[in-house]
């Protein structure tokens, strides 16, 4: 009995210890602000995103119907959640910490800010501070564009980033670029994220063994990581640069488990032969009986 109480006490202590662990947010992330002002439309978009991604654990804001976990996920309307600065919320949603999953590959930065705008709608005292200069450093420029080129000799993908700065289209240097290949359920990252050089160019080495379609076509997607500066900038193109791959349907071959038309030939032959043999024997017996019958008649005569 004492043992049971003791183990219960230990479990309670452990859970207290777990919930007491602070979630440390790096200062520069905590100070980040939304690049746009929260409005009814961002709150509406945020509510939709919240319902599909967050509600299953965090429940309806203000209704305190969170899922039972240790430590419990806080209610978005609670003081615990609302005491976080905007940047800290953004960081926590993006990075996650067990058991909270990371959402940086599921939601874009803009989507996360929309969810924060929805969460903030449950706090009457909240006054939003927006980024004064959309563009972070201010030097990044506007209307960023991505060009994609294929370098056949070196088996590389070259991206060129340009943006309008001081009314002139100029290459963007030192910004992070990511290359992906479209797959059925998601985008496969190719090589590592690269920073553009002074000419706005970044090179990605493309794997030689990546399968494409039967003609080797793959869809490439290039994204800029700095969503705070440029917003969501994305370019995609389809190139025949992957390994041409054709794999036949898995039920094409003849096999024991396949449908009758695709049964192994030996099985079809053996079956047909044995059926013919069985019927042949029966017919033979009947013929013999007939011969005996005929012979009997002849003898009587």
């Amino acid at each position, binding site marked *: 009995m004492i043992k049971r109480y003791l183990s219960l006490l230990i479990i309670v202590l452990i859970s207290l210890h777990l919930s007491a662990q602070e979630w440390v947010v790096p200062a520069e992330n905590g100070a980040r602000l939304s690049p746009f002002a929260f409005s009814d439309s961002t709150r509406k978009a945020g509510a939709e995103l919240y319902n599909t991604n967050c509600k299953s654990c965090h429940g309806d804001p203000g209704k305190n119907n969170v899922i039972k976990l240790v430590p419990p996920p806080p209610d978005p309307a609670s003081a615990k959640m609302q005491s976080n600065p905007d940047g800290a919320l953004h960081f926590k949603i993006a990075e996650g910490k067990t058991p909270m999953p990371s959402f940086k590959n599921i939601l874009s930065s803009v989507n996360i800010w929309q969810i924060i705008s929805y969460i903030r709608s449950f706090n009457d005292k909240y006054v939003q501070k927006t980024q004064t200069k959309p563009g972070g450093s201010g030097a990044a420029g506007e209307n960023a564009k991505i060009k994609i080129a294929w370098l056949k000799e070196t088996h590389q993908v070259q991206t060129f980033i340009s943006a309008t700065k001081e009314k002139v289209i100029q290459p963007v240097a030192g910004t992070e670029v990511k290359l992906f290949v479209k*797959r059925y359920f998601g985008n496969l990252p190719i090589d590592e994220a690269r920073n553009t050089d002074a000419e706005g160019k970044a090179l990605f080495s493309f794997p030689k063994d990546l399968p494409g379609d039967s003609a080797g076509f793959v869809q490439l997607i290039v994204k800029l990581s700095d969503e705070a500066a440029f917003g969501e900038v994305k370019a995609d193109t389809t190139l025949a640069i992957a390994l041409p791959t054709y794999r036949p349907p898995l*039920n094409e071959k003849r096999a024991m488990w396949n449908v009758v038309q695709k049964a192994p030939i030996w099985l079809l032959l053996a079956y047909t032969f044995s059926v013919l043999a069985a019927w042949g024997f029966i017919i033979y017996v009947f013929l013999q009986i007939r011969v005996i019958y005929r012979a009997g008649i002849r003898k009587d005569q």
Partner: protein
Amino acid sequence: MSNNNKSTGHDHVSREQENGNSRRAFFRNLGLIGATTAAGGAAIYSGYQYEQSKPNHDFVKVLTSDNRLVEVPRDQIKNIKVDHNQLTKLGREGLKGHRFVMVIDLSKCRNARKCISACQSAHHLRPHEYHINTLIMQESQNTAPYYMPKPCQHCDNPPCVAVCPVDATFKRQDGIVLIDNERCIGCRFCIAACPYSARLFHWEEPVMAESDKGKEYNIELNVPQRKGTITKCLFSSDRLREGKLPYCVSACPNGVYYFGDENQDAVTNGTSKETFRLSELLKVNGGYQLMPELGTKPRVYYLPPKNRLFEFKDERGQEKETT
């Protein structure tokens, strides 16, 4: 006799007179009726026209397939019947150009059971009817215990399909092994043949039999379930058709499941939605298959329970010790 004749003659005359009167009356009445009918008809018709032309305020809320709640006028609703044979034919063919694979990372499983509940609610199963069994594993006395989710392995050489006498269970071109509950005769040969114990038999009436009554059978979802037939993991083929990850894969909170296409050499994690190269993931982590020595060629791979993210907590085991 004469008396009789007379009387009949008189009758004849009087009847003629009567007939003449009544004919006139008849035509008079007919005119009256005709006029009233025409007037009434015109009134009804104009009323009908008015009903047709006036704006219809009777709206019905409808949830669209892309999850938007919209309102449509009630009289605009058309009931579409899903072409059952077409659905079954598509379900038998499978998705062209794909070979679906699943990778299960045992180092991340902590028996949260979210995959199981998502699966059961999608396929209308009871809480004790599993398409995915989460096994508590301990190889020997001194080795560490771990959890192992075990769905159908969707073998490339499926013993269950080979023994089916009625072609109810079959393999598709994308590698998925499905069951047609409308063909299944409940002989349970496939249960006996499966070395992974992936199949279960509906001994009792399925849990949602009442509410599923009259629903069109979906071969890619096995809904409505049928008493006296087999059911098992379907790799959520209805979701794959839409380009979505299976129910279990996207429900997992711990990143245990990866799902993807072997032809594209890519698998996507259901929790983080990160995509990896299948060949590299298996190579780096030492991926393996269940009982490959049987020659069943499973389509499910396992990553060993190395560097476990969660402590193994077996509530049942603890209870055993304390009592």
